[in-house]
């Protein structure tokens, strides 16, 4: 009796003391966002339902992304009060949507704006209006709100087993590789000096020598220059995927160069490469744009059909919550929708072949960001030659002394397969699949991350952003998209071939002026 009891006792004691065994349970969270199910509902609609009532207004803005919101904001400032803004999702913002939980606010898409350059007048005016630019110094450079400037350290790269500061690989570069990086930087500076590549892009130089670069892929151009080393290729590929949703062998060289050469913004109280960011990413700017709109903004509305008849625009809208179909009659309409959707709802709009890059964004709520070798966490954390684009630390801009729990936003563009195939594949992935994918993407730097995840939410961007394939930006198709057909107007970053805040905002503001002129 004694021996058995003794052995039993000693056997159970260690188990009690070692604490919980390895976690096998699933991570809480879900796939959020309405777009896929709702949007496909529209696609599969056999016939248009009859509207139950009609609403008259001056302007209908279809699409509550940055372009639509910018136009609305501008119209309101110019005194046009009678308009509506319609958006598919439960909140406006398009690619700049954000979310929040107990720990932090976090972005679902666009998460920063580089310091606006000289040509970006409309954006600068907006920033002055919302107090982001607080003044100018003697040299005329803007003084930015310190809280919005990305706090140091900005970026870090996990390379060769540890984190190093900055995004350009440094550890272990051979002299030849270093030479190629220097040559690349010099070439970009040269383009910058020539002011050939501007934001917004319509103000760029039309010199054929530059426009020709649009016909090559970025990879081909770099090969022409004799830059073949792996670290440089990885770096440029990373940047192309980040802004354009495609690798350097998929996007045009003009776009690739534009990424670097257009960042010429200056500040009185920050260095050139600094960016503006907030915990909720560009969602902060969305909030500023949405606030004055009040009841003019209608969310969870699908625009089914938009057509003109004798200078009146009829817009049929399905309100998802009430399942009611409303017809708006307006004197003008702004289609601030992605082109592939516009092509379905506006009869007579010539279909243009476009590629849209699918993205998946996973927000992982952590009880703490586990320490790993090398420099401390930065705002942007990237793994060298990793499968994804790394993660953004949402609490980085937090002023509190000791950040513990945080939300990290993991970005991945799915550009290995053709987009159509990828989208179909995405539909079949479960929440658990996406979690595993995100964790795997970060495994190299954070092998034990799973233990710290308290929640994981996923947003699928089937048609995340327009991709500037070679020949698109300076080709005939995009020129076609720029045509305005009053009373229907168009503004969207698709028309620039790049999904950037500055492009969308500028188009929105300019088209708002055009609409006002039309109304008068």
């Amino acid at each position, binding site marked *: 009796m004694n021996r058995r*009891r003794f052995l039993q006792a000693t056997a159970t*004691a260690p188990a009690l*003391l070692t604490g919980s065994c390895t976690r096998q349970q699933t991570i809480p969270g879900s796939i959020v966002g309405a777009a896929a199910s709702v949007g496909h509902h529209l696609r599969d609609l056999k016939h248009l339902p009859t509207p139950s009532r009609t609403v008259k207004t001056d302007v209908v803005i279809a699409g509550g992304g940055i372009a639509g919101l910018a136009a609305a904001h501008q119209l309101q400032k110019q005194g046009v009060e009678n308009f509506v803004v319609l958006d598919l999702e439960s909140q406006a913002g398009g690619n700049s949507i954000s979310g929040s939980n107990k720990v932090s606010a976090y972005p679902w898409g666009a998460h920063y704006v580089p310091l606006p350059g000289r040509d970006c007048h409309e954006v600068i005016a907006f920033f002055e209006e919302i107090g982001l630019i607080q003044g100018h110094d003697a040299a005329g450079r803007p003084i930015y709100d310190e809280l919005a400037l990305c706090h*140091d350290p900005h970026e870090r790269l996990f390379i060769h087993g540890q984190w190093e500061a900055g995004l350009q690989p440094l550890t272990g570069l051979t002299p030849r590789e270093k030479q190629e990086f220097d040559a690349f930087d010099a070439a970009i500076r040269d383009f910058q000096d020539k002011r050939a590549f501007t934001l917004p892009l319509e103000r760029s130089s039309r010199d054929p020598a530059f426009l020709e670069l649009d016909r090559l892929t970025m990879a081909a151009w770099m090969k022409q220059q004799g830059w073949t080393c792996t670290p440089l290729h990885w770096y440029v590929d990373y940047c192309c995927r980040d802004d354009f949703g495609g690798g350097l062998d998929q996007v045009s060289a003009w776009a690739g160069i534009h990424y670097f050469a257009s960042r010429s913004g200056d500040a009185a109280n920050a260095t050139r490469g600094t960016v503006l960011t907030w915990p909720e990413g560009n969602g902060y700017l969305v909030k500023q744009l949405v606030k004055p709109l009040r009841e003019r903004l209608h969310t969870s509305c699908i625009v089914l059909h938009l057509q003109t008849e004798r200078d009146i625009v009829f817009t049929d809208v399905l309100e998802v919550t009430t399942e009611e179909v409303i017809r708006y009659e307006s004197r003008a309409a702004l289609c601030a929708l992605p082109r592939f959707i516009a092509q379905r709802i506006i009869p007579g709009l010539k279909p243009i072949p476009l590629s849209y890059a699918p993205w998946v964004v996973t927000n992982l709520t952590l009880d703490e960001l586990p320490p790993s070798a090398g420099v401390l966490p930065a705002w942007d954390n990237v793994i060298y030659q990793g499968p994804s684009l790394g993660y953004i630390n949402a609490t980085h801009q937090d*002023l509190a*002394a000791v950040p513990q729990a945080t939300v990290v936003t993991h970005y991945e563009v799915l550009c290995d397969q053709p987009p159509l195939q990828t989208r179909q594949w995405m539909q079949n992935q479960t929440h658990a699949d996406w979690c595993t994918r995100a964790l795997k993407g970060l495994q190299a730097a954070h092998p034990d991350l799973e233990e710290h995840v308290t929640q994981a939410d996923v947003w699928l961007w089937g048609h995340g952003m327009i991709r500037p394939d070679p020949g698109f930006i300076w080709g005939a198709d995009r020129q076609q998209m720029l045509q305005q057909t009053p009373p229907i107007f168009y503004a969207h970053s698709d028309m620039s071939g790049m999904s950037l805040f500055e492009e969308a905002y500028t188009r929105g503001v300019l088209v708002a002026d055009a609409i006002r002129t039309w109304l008068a």
Partner: protein
Amino acid sequence: MNARPWLLLLSVFAIATCGLVYELIAGTLASYLLGDSITQFSTIIGVYLFAMGVGSYLSRFVTGNLISTFIRVEFLIALLGGCSASILFLIFGWTVSFRIPLYSIVFLIGCFVGLEIPLLLRILEGRFVFKDLVSNVFSFDYIGALLASLLFPLVLVPHLGLVRSAFLFGLINTAVGILALIMLRSEIPRLRSLWITGLSVAAILIAGFVNGSEITRWGEYAAFPDPVIYAESTPYQRLVLTKRKDELRLYLNSNLQFSSKDEYRYHESLVHPGLSRLPVARRVLILGGGDGLAAREVLRYPRVESITLVDLDPAMTELFSSNAMLREQNGDALKSPRVKVENADAFAWLAEKHEPFDFVIIDFPDPSNFSLGKLYSTTFYQRLLKIMAPNAALVVQSTSPFVARQSFWCVDATLRACGLQTEPYHALVPSFGEWGFILASRQPLSGPAILPEGLKFVNEEVLAQLPRFPPDMARIETEINRLNNQALVHYFEEDWAR
């Protein structure tokens, strides 16, 4: 049957080793905490041997089942000895006289150990020839002592630390008791209650061993020049107190915060050059300074009506409000009716509404990481200015202008970029070296300095000297520290890497 006596002799070996280890632990602890190792070790050894004598005397009164008593006493030694180091560490900060619990524990353990050997002799009587019995028992006893005395300094203290060593040897004592329980079960009545006792003691000791790393962490002894007497990991930082003789030192995350020998130089230099020139200052704000030492200096001014102290870490302010030694050091400042302690993040606290302050003392740890660097940024000072009265002044602890020259002048440049006039000055604090402070205000401070009585470092002549910088610490051009460039942290890393 034959193995048993030899196993029991082995238990003599174990008992002797354990007994000596507890004695050495007590002696070491006493010399750390009370100083003067010769006296401590002598008295502890004396008391211990005396107690063993008392225990041996008391053994004659043990009747009834000897084995049962032996095992029970074994478990008692295990519990008491095993927990001895933890108990002594915990008691140290809380009692005025540490010696009473110290000698009591030593006495009790000695008593019980003294009881065991005679009991064992009586148990083994009849199983060995007498002459062999006596020879065996005593030789195992003394050999055990050698093992203990070698293990202790070479293995136990450096690798396990005092607390865990005690728990480990407590477990060995428990094992001895359990072994005896198994081997001699036929001769013991009421087996079950002994088993329960034994297993409970084992469980307690195992729990203590696993969790007992608070005070003595692996390698911590090597990390600090003086013996560690208190350590705590709070959610914000690691607090370590060391003591050698009379010198008490506080380390936050291994960075020295003060040494009791010369902290008055630091704190008098921090507070008086500014405050003595503000004759109408009534409301003072201290950011950081959770040790209460700056508050002690401010309290010397009767005209100061209120001191608000904002420190992030409640464990720190709690420690410095309650521990007897530390309250003596800071003059019980944190408990003064004029002092209000708030535990909050300084940046977040500044965003709230507050009555304007006349003098602000910024006594943060050095800007060694990005979280701390934010507290030295233009944004921070701009927020601070919003709750300062028009004629108010602030003083910032700005690291060493000798070792970290760039860092020091960066703080100065940052303050000036916020539109303030600055008066940098420095003082020699032997444990730190040359240390720098910067007094800043919207308008230059006028008025003579009216110093309080009883200062040990600052007087009028010294005040005149403090702002003078020799060429090797003089001003240099630096960047301004902003949230988006964290220039100060980069300078600091550079400076200290040299």
